[in-house]
């Protein structure tokens, strides 16, 4: 049996999408050079921005997972009144541009009595590092939940039923059966969420600002350099961001497939 035309067409589409992003990602090379990259890496401000980005993206991904796992599990396993409405509602934030989301959050924490109480008495989000984490969370949480729900959907509920008949509580069957079975999906969701958080800019800059050595993430630094017309730095910093993202992809994939699959 030969290769079907459909299969050929599918591979062609795959090639097109790969080429599309490769073209985009290699283009900064026109504006930068290794020396510029090294210079950027030597700057205290950029090193700070890199560490801040990695730290905040990790925090927001963890928060997203802690809240997202139970939410996704409920959505995957339970049927309740108004579920369709809830699921539809959860899709809405995807339509809001991150910068608008950030301005909404800023307004909430400044203008709303509850918001300002939280901001002044509990955690300072406005113009502070927790604001970066919250902004990233606002942008990635829906994505995390969607991906987690799909992983849970892939685990047959029958496994849990069997565990329950063997005397496991609902929590135990979730912890010992469902969670391990969905492990790869969860790690994949975490990786994609982390990558998205790393690149988050709009909500972050609106809620946490672009304060040097305080809330200036790598994505904010890229924007600031663009705003100042420093194309060379934009290219250098974008390359750094891509390298970090690539490293994370390779590391997590190693973890997922133990090197058995590329």
């Amino acid at each position, binding site marked *: 049996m030969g290769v079907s035309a459909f299969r050929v067409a599918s591979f062609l589409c795959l090639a097109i999408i790969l080429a599309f992003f490769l073209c985009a990602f290699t283009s900064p090379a026109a504006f930068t050079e290794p020396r510029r990259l090294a210079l950027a890496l030597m700057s205290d401000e950029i090193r700070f921005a890199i560490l801040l980005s990695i730290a905040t993206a990790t925090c927001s991904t963890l928060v997203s997972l802690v809240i997202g796992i139970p939410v996704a599990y409920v959505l995957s396993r339970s049927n309740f009144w108004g579920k369709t409405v809830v699921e539809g509602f959860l899709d809405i934030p995807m339509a809001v541009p991150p910068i608008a989301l950030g301005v909404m959050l800023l307004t909430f924490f400044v203008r709303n009595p509850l918001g300002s109480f939280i901001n002044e008495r509990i955690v300072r989000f406005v113009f502070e590092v927790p604001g970066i984490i919250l902004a990233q969370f606002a942008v990635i949480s829906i994505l995390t939940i969607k991906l987690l729900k799909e992983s849970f959907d892939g685990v047959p509920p029958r496994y849990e039923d069997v565990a329950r008949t063997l005397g496991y509580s609902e929590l135990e069957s979730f912890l010992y059966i469902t969670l391990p079975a969905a492990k790869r999906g969860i790690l994949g969701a975490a990786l994609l969420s982390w990558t998205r958080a790393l690149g988050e800019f709009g909500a972050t800059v609106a809620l946490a600002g672009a304060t040097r050595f305080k809330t200036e993430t790598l994505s*904010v630094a890229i*924007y600031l350099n663009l705003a100042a017309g420093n194309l060379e730095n934009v290219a250098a910093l974008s390359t750094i961001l891509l390298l970090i993202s690539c490293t994370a992809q390779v590391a997590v994939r190693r973890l997922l497939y133990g090197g058995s699959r590329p």
Partner: protein
Amino acid sequence: MRKFAALLSAVLVLSAVCASAFYQPTEGTSPREVVVFAGAAAAPVYREVAAHFESRYGVKVALNLGGSGALLSALEIARTGDVYIPGSPEYLVLASKRGIVDFTAFEPRALAYLVPAIIVQKGNPKNITKLEDLARPGIRVGVANPEFVCLGLYTKELLEENGLWEAVNRNVVVHAESCEATARLVYIGAVDAVIGWHVFYYWNPDKADIVWIEPDKIPKISYIAGAVTAFARDGDLAVKFLDLLASREAREIWRRYGYFTTLEEAKARAPRAVIEGLGRYGG
């Protein structure tokens, strides 16, 4: 399945039709269009003047609005567009150094002047009356990022000249990423005061108040100037647009949005201030 395929093809056809209706390539066959890259802050002025221009010359004006630096980058990468009007002359100097604008084709001139001022929340609840008040304990101050944003550079110079940079910096809770974001901080009420351009007040007089800085304390004022790009397709049309922006009727529009249109008006607020020159064409 057949129903699904029919629906899918209907959606495809419909979206293709819609998309093509919106598709108006800038580099069309007709050169009778001026493509203007302009700082978004003065958008209302450019929109009004563009409408005048279109009705007078029958030539479409494509306004490409955004941050001055981002627009400069876009011009540099794409090498298309006829007119560049950044929010501050420093960008024009940069554009000239990079060969993006050509000062010999059209001598850039100041269209409107901007004076630094303290912008406070409506009603001035913290009773801020002078620059020194920004260093008072408990005042939350916002400034534009002093490294990358033009307004931030002016702010830093203003405070340093007056020996207040360190003292005010202790009260600075945020660096904003752009001029507009700096103004927004006060409108939303996220800070007590920002150092901004005087027009921030006129953009939103319901949400802010202005505290003029003592005239002798202002070392530098800014202005908006435009230039023809080095790759303009129809240089004459580009010059006509800039001429209209500098005309007496346009001056009325600028004034309506709070801009100073003569150096004298601006100097009345800042007599000692210098302004950034544009090479040998001086501002």
